């Protein structure tokens, strides 16, 4: 059973549009939700992260919206650029400070110029 689910599996938007990537989770004890992006043949890199004390986290064109009650979050990328084309992974970890991350299957975003 997938503990972290992402949708859609793939997404294509035009340059300048807003891309919305969705994520949901099962375990209500999860307390840290980072998003990683991964370009082909490269390692994943931390993009932005949120903890449940907030329902929104913004960093430039990237914003996480978090709904604790529904156990859902979404990543909004405004003014999408071709350079944003990558696979985006939602991840989650729980208390205990071991740092173990559970990753979703990813959303592959293609931004068309």
């Amino acid at each position: 059973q997938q503990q972290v689910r992402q949708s859609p599996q793939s997404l294509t938007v035009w340059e300048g549009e807003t891309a919305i990537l969705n994520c949901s989770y099962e375990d209500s004890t999860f307390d840290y939700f980072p998003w990683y992006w991964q370009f082909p043949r490269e390692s994943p890199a931390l993009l932005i992260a949120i903890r449940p004390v907030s329902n929104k986290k913004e960093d430039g064109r990237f914003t996480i919206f978090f709904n604790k009650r529904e156990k859902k979050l979404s990543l909004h990328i405004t003014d999408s650029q071709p350079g944003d084309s990558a696979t985006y992974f939602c991840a989650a970890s729980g208390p205990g400070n071991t740092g173990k991350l559970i990753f979703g299957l990813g959303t592959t975003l293609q931004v068309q110029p």
Partner: protein
Amino acid sequence: GPKVLQIPSHQIIDMGQMVTLNCDPVSNHLYFYWYKQILGQQMEFLVNFYNGKVMEKSKLFKDQFSVERPDGSYFTLKIQPTALEDSAVYFCASSLEGSDYTFGSGTRLLVI
């Protein structure tokens, strides 16, 4: 920024042989991890390591797998013996406080 180095970047090995994947984590980081990613799929947690000990391991971390970091040197993942299903990209990561990871660039392992 600080980097996690993984050596080698690629490895082809005969089934049944032993392989050691090496990771040089960020120097002041305290938590170390191995993840396995099969082409086009999610990254799956294998093991984490702190203060010289395995903290947690997944069911993917078979008996043939072992990790160590002798005397603060490389953090290694050893597979002995290897199986065909071990073919994947193995990512090492490190973190200071057990949250924000720095990932290495991965070792692409092919078992034939």
